[in-house]
């Protein structure tokens, strides 16, 4: 087991956003998290990499046990340096070129030399066909290009797991395909990932398992064909039929 989450709870004021989440991820798995808006999907990802601190719960990651409510600074840094995240609105560093966006984490997160980092960043850009844009700033790139660089920035770090938070939701429809293509390539290479998504075709065809979130709980979880073809819960059925036109 690469990652095991146990009983994660999180509330904002009186709003119970996560009501005890358990989730296990094997190496090489692609987990899709689907569910209605406000059900706590983003919050779960942010608790895993400590952008938020859970009220309770634990995480077993690479055989290290971490109390999510009381992580030490060292544990936080260690965990983050073995994970990566891709944001819905890309969050590329606005003051860095495409190349530096990718190499920065190698230099400052992994102590690589600048030359080595730039070389790896060039390779990563080349793989997504954006080497020609290496000296462009984010403002000079399309949303699709920014997100593909966002993915390159995450994967160049060779993380054990990549967390995706609706990576295509902010994109124009015609740009979604290229980003999903990059993600599928990654999945085929065996990259472990947790993907929060509204792209049902991706969840169905690429993910090995799907977890359906509702109201701070995982209502249903299983192989993607099971969830899509035979959803057990009424809420899951409703959700899937409401967005049926998507897939």
């Amino acid at each position, binding site marked *: 087991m690469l990652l095991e989450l146990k009983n994660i709870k999180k509330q904002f004021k009186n709003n119970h956003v996560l009501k005890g989440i358990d989730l296990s991820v094997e190496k090489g798995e692609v987990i899709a998290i689907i569910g209605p808006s406000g059900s706590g999907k983003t919050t779960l990802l942010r608790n895993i*990499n400590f*952008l938020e601190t859970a009220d309770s719960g634990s995480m077993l990651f690479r055989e290290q046990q971490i109390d999510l409510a009381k992580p030490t600074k060292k544990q936080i*840094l260690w965990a*983050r*340096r073995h*994970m*990566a*995240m891709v*944001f819905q*609105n890309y*969050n*590329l*560093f*606005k*003051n*860095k070129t495409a190349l530096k966006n990718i190499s*920065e*984490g190698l230099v*400052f*997160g*992994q102590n690589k030399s600048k030359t080595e980092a730039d070389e790896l960043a060039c390779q990563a850009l080349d793989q997504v066909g954006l080497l020609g844009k290496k000296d*462009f*700033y984010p*403002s*000079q790139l399309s949303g699709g290009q920014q997100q593909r660089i966002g993915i390159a*920035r*995450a994967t160049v*770090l060779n993380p054990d797991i990549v967390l995706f938070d609706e990576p295509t939701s902010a994109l124009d429809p015609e740009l979604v395909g290229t980003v999903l293509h990059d993600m599928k390539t990654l999945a085929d290479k065996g990259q472990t990932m947790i993907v929060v998504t509204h792209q049902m075709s991706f969840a169905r065809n690429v993910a090995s398992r799907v977890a359906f979130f509702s109201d701070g709980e995982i209502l249903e979880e299983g192989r993607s064909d099971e969830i899509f073809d035979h959803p057990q819960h009424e809420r899951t059925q409703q959700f899937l039929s409401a967005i049926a036109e998507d897939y």
Partner: protein
Amino acid sequence: MKLSKVIISLLHGLPTTLILLAFSFIFANLIGLGLAWLYLRRNPIANGFARGYLGLVRGTPPLLMLLLAYYGLPKLFLLVGIDINGWAKLIFGIAGLAIGWSAYLAEAFRSAYLSVDAGQYEAALVVGMDTKQAFLRIIMPQAFLIALPNIENLLIGLVKATSLVYVIGIVDMYSTAVDLSNQNQGVYQLEIFVILALIYWVVVLLIEWGFRRFRKHYQYVTV
């Protein structure tokens, strides 16, 4: 007296004006950075001190600030047993202007810091930077660019404020002009002040040019 002589005597005051400008601006920035940092602390003492300083200083006219620095600082230093009465007036001029402008700069820094997109900081953390690296490499450069228009305006305001140091008897460009005008019993009076205005204008133009070049260099960094 010839007009060329007028120009030459006015220009003799220019170095003093520029020294005042440069040093008070540098110190104002340093104090301003410290204040912004204190203001952003959650520690109530640090935060309270910064708020108090900002409130007091922003409510004091620059002219009065110069007088307070000139008469007040020596008293303040005497309290801790240091006699600075003999220090050059220029130092008090620099101190008065720096204290006055530090408050505005602190506000510019603080608001710029707060308006950097929170996602930038989070992105820095998730690629493995620690909080200090995230601040120095991602947040600070962006905050600086956001603050730049304010900094430019404050610097230009400071150019004009340097003329106020006549109240503590510093001979800069402005007080040279006033002296000239008095000595000449009204001859060339208008010309003297027009030339003075032109010199200030050139200084401001140069500043604007510098900032423009800087902005151009970072035109694609839209923060």
